[in-house]
């Protein structure tokens, strides 16, 4: 497949003959060169440290293709991309085109701009992309896969390999497609908290024991017939595991894909037994596993990463006027559309949470300072402190609040907030400060200029602090009489603590840890979050709680392990017959049994022998539901052990003794947020 000639980084130039379409692309590229350069400068001044970004100008169709391919130009052939593409087209047809930002985790990162977008949208995308590139470069979860993933090239290589197998006359193409489907059913069943380690394609997967045993048998010089009857392959395999006399795997293994790669077989219908996978199968399995590991960090940091990008996009676009006033209206419209998408939106949850983190960090520092004022204690804090006065004192100084280009000469020397290099250039007329006022400032200057606590929407933050939190903060204070006056205390406030803290968080957190640590009652109240549950008694969904602990529980459920139940390989010699036993780590939320059965069919294809799954199932009695309904309560579910086994042509399902599944049940987590009694 050839690449379209206009897919070139904007900066590159060569001798290609250009079509009118190319020229249109080039014009757009030329128009965007300055915004791209400025966005990067601004991002760096704001403390971000992004990977370099190559921007590509693409047309509408190419954009849809990129979206379908998960942000890359080449992926292995699969109908799923076609499905996404189809949906994407329908969506833009019915909902109107949204400006999508596509940037992929790579060094340098690649980002794509649609030629027909308005300039405001382009700028929004560019600022958003710079922040993503910073996140990719600095978040440690991305380092798990690789700091230098070379992703585009790797995915293109994967595409080529798989396409090669599909076109191989020796291999049935539809078999390759089916095989890919089987693996993709398990693409989230990896160990995303561990770094990726490839399982090599060569080497004897049977392990040394089996090979040794085979050698011993050779030495016995038995006739072929005896060997076939007594020491058949099945016996050999059973020896392999029995000999070690421990369960295998020794510890439950969450990386099901990796386990199947290392020990899986395929079922040979003619031979009616499991046989080694073909080389192409092993190869594809490892390729798709590698891709699953590559994409895992993005899935682990969706709220964090999207929120991060939205936060800096909003700061650059709106607060720093990166869009001019005309463009800003388009931008605001775009932003509200993105953030107002229905349901729980990772963009808006992330953005709100980052803003909350910023403000609470700033508040914590201001409160620390105020508690050091003579006579101010956590008990009398709300009486002693005049919050309006404090906010007035916190307002950024005129020096950073606005730039008067006619009065550049009165800017004092030696102020840490001023970028003197820019100032000199501006005085010479080389820098347009009217257009890019932020260029005059350093990180410190910009931090003060955009200090969160004095923004109109945040002015209530300071006074809203609870006595609990005041007490907690004061507990760690040593010198609580440092300042004579409130004025002096505020004077010592460091405007950069909010941003500094945010950068620390973006380095080490993922969605789960982020939500766990920073979601508070104050935040939940402010943003009107609530939980809901399906009520069996009334047969519909009902709001259940606004307690932040409940909201957190539900969010954790949605973001832990990609929002999927944890299923592990428990025993690879189940029933002493090399069957595969999977176990669902039950956390109180039931497994979708119907889907699980479909997955088991696919696992069978990758294991080659019968597979089983144990879980805990919830059962509701019709009578109980009725009784509960009358009493305005929810019925109690009965939890029972459940085992599903797939033999290759049929399912066996049965209730199992509680003892066999007891260890699967979580005792310390409860994701249920239903109140004891429904409010009448």
């Amino acid at each position, binding site marked *: *497949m050839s690449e379209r000639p206009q897919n070139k980084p904007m900066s590159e130039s060569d001798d290609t003959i250009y079509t009118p379409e190319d020229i249109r692309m080039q014009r757009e590229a030329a128009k965007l060169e300055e915004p791209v350069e400025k966005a990067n400068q601004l991002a760096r001044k704001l403390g971000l440290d992004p990977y370099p970004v190559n921007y590509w100008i693409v047309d509408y169709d190419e954009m849809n*293709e990129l979206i379908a391919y998960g942000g890359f130009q*080449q992926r292995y*052939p*699969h*109908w*799923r*991309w*076609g*499905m*996404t593409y*189809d*949906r994407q087209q329908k969506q833009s047809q019915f909902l109107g085109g949204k400006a999508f930002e*596509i940037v992929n985790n790579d060094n340098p990162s690649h980002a794509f701009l649609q030629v027909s977008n308005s300039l405001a949208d382009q700028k929004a995308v560019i600022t958003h992309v710079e922040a993503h590139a910073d996140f990719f470069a600095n978040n440690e979860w991305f380092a798990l896969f690789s700091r230098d993933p070379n992703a585009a090239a790797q995915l293109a290589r994967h595409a080529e390999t798989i*396409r090669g197998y599909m076109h191989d006359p020796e291999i049935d193409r539809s078999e390759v497609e089916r095989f890919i*489907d089987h693996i*993709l*059913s*398990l693409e*989230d069943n990896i160990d995303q908290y561990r770094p990726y380690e490839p399982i090599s394609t060569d080497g004897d997967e049977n392990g040394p024991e089996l090979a040794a045993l085979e050698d011993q048998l050779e030495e016995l010089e038995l006739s072929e017939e005896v060997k076939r009857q007594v020491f058949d392959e099945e016996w050999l395999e059973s020896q392999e595991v029995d000999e070690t006399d421990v369960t295998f795997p020794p510890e439950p293994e969450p990386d099901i894909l990796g386990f199947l790669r290392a020990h899986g077989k395929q079922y040979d219908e003619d031979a009616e037994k499991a046989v080694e996978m073909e080389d192409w199968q092993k190869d594809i399995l490892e390729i798709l596993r590698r891709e699953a590991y590559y994409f895992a960090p*993005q899935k682990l940091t*969706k709220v964090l990463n*999207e929120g991060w990008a939205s936060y800096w996009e909003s700061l650059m676009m709106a607060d720093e006027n990166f869009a001019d006033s005309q463009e800003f209206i388009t931008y605001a419209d775009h932003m509200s559309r993105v953030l107002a998408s*229905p*349901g*729980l*939106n*990772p*963009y*808006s949850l992330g953005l709100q949470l980052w803003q909350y983190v910023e403000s609470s960090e700033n508040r914590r520092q201001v409160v620390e300072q105020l508690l050091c004022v003579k006579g101010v204690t956590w008990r009398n804090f709300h009486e002693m402190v005049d919050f309006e006065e404090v906010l007035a004192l916190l307002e950024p100084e005129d020096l950073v609040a606005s730039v008067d280009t006619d009065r550049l000469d009165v800017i004092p020397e030696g102020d840490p907030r001023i970028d003197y290099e820019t100032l000199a250039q501006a005085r010479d007329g080389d820098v347009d400060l009217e257009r890019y006022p932020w260029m005059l400032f350093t990180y410190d200057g910009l931090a003060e200029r955009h200090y969160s606590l004095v923004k109109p929407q945040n002015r209530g933050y300071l006074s809203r602090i609870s006595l609990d939190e005041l007490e907690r903060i004061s507990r760690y204070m040593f010198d609580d009489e440092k300042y004579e006056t409130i004025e002096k205390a505020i004077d010592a406030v460091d405007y950069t603590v909010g941003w500094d803290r945010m950068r620390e968080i973006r380095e080490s957190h993922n969605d789960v840890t982020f939500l766990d640590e920073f979601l508070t009652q104050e935040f939940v109240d402010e943003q*009107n979050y*609530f*939980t*809901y549950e*399906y009520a069996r008694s009334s*047969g*519909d*969904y*009902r*709001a*259940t709680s606004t307690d932040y602990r409940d*909201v957190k529980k*539900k969010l954790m*459920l*949605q*973001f832990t392990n990609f929002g*999927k139940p944890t*299923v592990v390989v428990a025993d690879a010699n189940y029933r002493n017959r090399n069957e595969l036993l999977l176990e*669902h780590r039950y956390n109180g*939320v*039931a*497994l979708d049994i119907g*889907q*699980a059965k479909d*997955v088991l069919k696919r696992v069978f294809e990758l294991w080659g022998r019968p597979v089983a799954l144990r879980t805990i199932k919830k059962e509701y009695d*019709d009578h109980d539901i*009725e009784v509960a309904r009358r009493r305005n309560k929810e019925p109690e579910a009965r939890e029972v052990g459940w085992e599903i086994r797939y033999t290759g042509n049929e399912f066996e399902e049965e209730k199992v003794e509680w003892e066999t599944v007891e260890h699967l049940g979580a005792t310390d987590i409860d*994701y249920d947020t239903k*109140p004891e009694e*429904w409010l009448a």
Partner: protein
Amino acid sequence: MGLREDLERFREVGEQRRQDLAEFIQYGDLSGGRPDQIKIPIKIVDLPEFAYEKRDMGGVGQGDGGTPEPGEPVGQPEPGDGDEEGDPGEESAEHEYYEMDPEEFAEELDEELGLDLDPKGKEVTEEIEGDFTDITRTGPTGTLDFERLFKEGLKRKLAMDFDEEYVRAALQIDGWGPDRVFEWARTEESIPVSRAWIVDAYEGLSADERTTYGSLAEMEATVEREPTPARIRREGIKDIPFRREDERYRYPEIIEEREKNVVVVNIRDVSGSMRQKKRELVERTFTPLDWYLQGKYDNAEFIYIAHDADAWEVDRGDFFGIRSGGGTKISSAYALAKERLDEEYPWAEWNRYVFAAGDSENSSNDTSENVIPLMEEIDANLHAYVETQPTGNAINATHAEEVNDHFADSDNVAVAYVSSPEDVTDAIYEILSTEQNDE
């Protein structure tokens, strides 16, 4: 890029991968389609994965300027409530839907269940002009069927024509007069000659001529009777006796387009004993039936009747969810159904289906004294009763049994039992094949 290929593969896969129809009816989400909507969304089976049971998972919502009180219903969670993967640009966990219209649904169901219901046309909705194959006795000259007129004339001529010479020869037999000849011609020779003609001819003969032959045998020996076709061939057709009565005018055939109208009455027991599971089973059975009939007929209308001890008509949106506390009197629903059908859907113009569902509980004697007579009174292609009993029969729940016994020999009454989703397709088959047998 290879995406075009991927798209094509998806289209192929999408067709193959849509949920099996029977499975969809038994377990799928039927709420997506409405009889008044045309598309039935059947989930395209995306790749399965280990996932939480949706309902058991619950979720987090964000209020708009306030939060709902605990216990307040919040509606269906929006798609995209957090569990999709990746950027909003690639919401890959959402399901694609294969949209089936009711016609296709009916066709597929026919195939899947081996049904073949042939809908009857009822109300004449329009007459269109077909070929000019019908004829009438009057009409514009241009449409006169001359060929027919000529043929009829020819036939008439052949019928009326006779060998005049031969008859005249008979008059020349000595002693024979007009009366004798007339009798001879008519009885012995079957010559279509009138008495008037014979009298005229006789008068035209001279006295000598009247005695030319001594006897009939002599005349027959002398004069040979010439058959009409031979004479016409010899003489040619000089004139054809065209008669007004033979005139026919062609006019176009009128084809009556009978619209295949159907009215479906859905009756449901909403009394206290009809719990959640029973309600769901009714919905699972009735909804595909509605779709099927909608797909089979040109024009389908639906009446939804809920009843406990009384019956009332409801919107479809409310039909499957309603609960009331009262007792049960099934005849109340049939009385209302009869009233509604007689009012607006005359049997001459409408195919009628009356489906009722409940747990077979009824007030004492209501079934035999009221319901059965009403079912007999209501003309319908098909009456059906669907008993939904997820937990086995209650002792006094005998309605289905009584109806079944009474109408055992009838071919337009079906009784089906549904105690779990697995039974639904069998019940649908049972119901729809009853009418088919009737054909």
